[in-house]
């Protein structure tokens, strides 16, 4: 843009004034991959956190009749296996099944025996997962034939069930809650430590900065993933500890980034101008340093979150994740990986959610970086 002599008073032609943030948001919205990533993330979060309200199964509810059933859109059990189940029940009750029919949510059955049947036999029916509220509707043949009616409880397992007979759909939702929560909370912990440490080191500078950064260097040569393992093994496997520990080891990069930013900002002329205006250190940090470091920090958080989720999954693989019946995607995946041949759905569903989430985070992060730092990449 060239200013011309004839128009020193003219303002830029745009009718709407936009802050840098608004411009970044505009660029971000133009980036289709990043926007798609964001939408997917929101959907996955809704699925994980609100999904449990819409399904009837609890994540720790065990269905002994449905151990390791594959996923299906059909209700379980289907008509054939109901018949089988009914025959099994009849056998246990020492009666012969003559007729059996299912209509909607109710069944009717006719059973006979050589001897009069005790009406309390219905208890055998209720004991099975599939049937309940069985009542005798008619007694014929001097009590040797009973007409029974009751409810069939048919269950939907869209994602199948695990080897303990728990609904995978509910478990994937719970896993999502825990993985996302660990990812966010650990990132916040690392953000907190990293920003304070980096900003202090960068702003004070000089020898303090030297010592603080030397310490970070030393920590870099500590095998940190191993330390997480040690800490979790020794201090227990609670949810809180896991994200605290992961956060406590992931702050090094953040501290470096914030320090670098602070050092660069300190040299910028607008900080010099603020000093010349007589602002105090704290006013300068609050009004100038922090608002200008937010961009890179936010971008870095989108890198840390997937890293943390991966680290949590690694812990889960080692059997050091959250304790059953709680679970995380990582725990589900490692369980699924062990049963990859016999029950592939145990791997497929959590893995899809896990990978799609991390994928979307990556795209959203890349988009955010491009939007905030509009160099041509």
């Amino acid at each position, binding site marked *: *843009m*060239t*200013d*011309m*002599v004839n128009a*020193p*008073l*003219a*303002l*830029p032609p*745009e009718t709407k*004034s*936009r*802050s*840098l*943030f608004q*411009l970044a948001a505009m*660029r971000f919205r*133009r980036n289709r991959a990043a926007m798609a990533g964001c939408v997917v993330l929101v959907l996955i979060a809704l699925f994980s956190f609100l999904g449990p309200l819409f399904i009837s199964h609890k994540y720790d509810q065990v269905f002994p009749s449905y151990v390791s059933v594959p996923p299906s859109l059909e209700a379980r059990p289907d008509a054939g296996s109901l018949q089988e189940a009914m025959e099994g029940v009849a056998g246990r009750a020492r009666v012969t099944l003559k007729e059996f029919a299912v209509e909607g949510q109710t069944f009717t059955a006719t059973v006979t025996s050589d001897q009069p049947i005790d009406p309390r036999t219905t208890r055998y029916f209720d004991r099975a997962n599939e049937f309940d509220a069985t009542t005798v509707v008619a007694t014929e043949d001097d009590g040797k034939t009973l007409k029974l009616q009751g409810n069939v409880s048919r269950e939907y397992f869209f994602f199948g069930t695990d080897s303990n007979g728990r609904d995978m759909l509910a478990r994937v939702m719970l896993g999502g809650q825990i993985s996302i929560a660990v990812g966010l909370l650990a990132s916040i912990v690392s953000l907190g430590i990293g920003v304070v440490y980096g900003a202090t080191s960068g702003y004070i500078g000089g*020898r303090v900065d*030297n*010592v603080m950064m*030397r310490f970070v260097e030393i920590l870099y040569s500590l095998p940190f993933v191993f330390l997480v393992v040690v800490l979790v093994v020794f201090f227990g496997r609670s949810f809180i500890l896991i994200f605290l520990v992961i956060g406590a080891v992931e702050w090094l990069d953040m501290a470096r980034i914030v320090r670098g930013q602070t050092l660069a900002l300190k040299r*910028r*002329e*607008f900080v*010099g*101008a*603020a*000093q*010349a*205006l*007589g*602002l*105090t250190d704290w*006013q300068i940090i609050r*009004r*100038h340093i922090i*608002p*200008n470091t937010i961009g890179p920090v936010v971008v870095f958080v989108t890198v840390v979150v997937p890293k943390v989720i991966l680290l949590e999954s690694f812990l889960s693989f080692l059997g050091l994740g959250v304790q059953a019946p709680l679970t995380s995607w990582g725990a589900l995946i490692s369980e699924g990986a062990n049963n990859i041949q016999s029950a592939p759905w145990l791997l497929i569903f959590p893995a899809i959610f896990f990978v799609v989430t991390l994928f979307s985070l990556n795209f959203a992060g890349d988009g955010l970086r491009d939007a905030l730092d509009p160099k*041509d990449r």
Partner: protein
Amino acid sequence: MAAESILTVRNMKVSFDTPDGTVEAVKGIDLDVKSGETLAIVGESGSGKSQTMMGIMGLLAKNGRATGSASYRGKELIGLPMKELNTVRGAKITMIFQEPMTSLDPLYTIGRQIAEPIVYHRGGSFAEAKARALELLELVGIPEPARRINSYPHELSGGQRQRVMIAMALANEPDILIADEPTTALDVTIQAQILDLLKSLQQKFGMAVVLITHDLGIVRHFASRVAVMRRGEVVETGATADIFERPQADYTRMLLAAEPSGRKASPPDNAPIILEGRNVCVDYRTGGGLFKSASGTFRAVDDITLRLKQGQTIGIVGESGSGKSTLGRALLKLLPASGHIRFEKTDISDFGRSAMRPLRQEMQLVFQDPYGSLSPRQTVGEIITEGLYVHEPQLSRAERDRRAVEALKEVGLDPAARNRYPHEFSGGQRQRIAIARAMILKPKVVILDEPTSALDRSVQGQVIDLLRGLQKSHDLSYIFISHDLSVIKAMSDYVIVMKNGKIVEEGETDAIFDAPKQAYTQTLMNAAFTA
């Protein structure tokens, strides 16, 4: 001079695809470069002068596109396949760039970089090419070429790097050398040396030089013909003398008139001294690490004494590294300095940060870079009223806003600007905002640190007029720091020439400019082409 046109540009356009649509940077221009001549293409930033040459050389950014025709001795260059274009560029047409610091590959020795185009265009081995590179280094005046040939770019000064670029450009004895602002990033004395070198080499090799520049002083001394560009169009072409003496286009006339002019009268002798520095020294520690103390000190400002009277403008002139900016900050106590500093009647030599705070209202600072000195995340209103938060916290919101409007009007900006963000403004407008930020506090002393150096000439003139007007209406005292002698001459009534932290010469502006006593001052004057 030979009249044969060796590079003929016809209806050339350069456009860039941006998210906001296509931007035409060059709008169908015609140019002729004749063999052996020096053609200057003059224009301000954004005039498209560089992009024209980049388009011809196939060096546009990915989103750029050149159309039209540019033929070199009958060979159409635009749209030429890269392989064929590569037989022309670097051999027949070569180029040197504005930034000698970044234009050379930092990872290779300069010898190897000069040899590379020789090997690719002429064949032969690197060893043979190195021998030629050595000759070239000698030719462009690199001291100890046999040793320097194995140096890396970071081991050379800016001027030396530009000499290396010139050696590279001459390696294949080109027909045309395009020099894109070759001296803008260099100090004035170095600038003159480089231009003299170019001129003598041009005579020796008989090549044509296309000089892209914004600096009319350079044009007048070096070009035989001039093309003036503005907003992607050539507004005027002609022989240098004609352009300077009988400019046809309004724009050319405006450019010529934009050379800062006028003199400032000295304040009356009995004007009170408002800011005084006696024996001011600033030391920087160099080296030093975690467990060792600083290995040495570097004296950036060495025993400087100056007295600024009310209504006076002291111009401090010097090249980069002379300590002039450091001195400015030291006088405002923004840097630890030794010596005595007095503001009005108060000795502020030992004032700490909090003691200085109330005084900051009276002593303000305006920076060089209008892009870096405004926080990109604040609105203009927030930026210019920031000082009021510190110095007049009792002001109501409405009152602050009124003051902002007043300040913006005073610097010639529409008050509506206060709701906008700095990135929406041009360089000159931003500098006005920076000045408004200082003026809103109604200071007595303003230190102006190269406030016009990042601006185009025409804008420079406006900012200088603005500063002079403000000085008159508020009886301000300025310390005006610059490397640009013509601006210093127009602004100040007293001049201090600095070199390596020391005062070389000082005196009334007229005395310094008309009869410089020191050799260094004379060199500066000659180099600046303004004498």
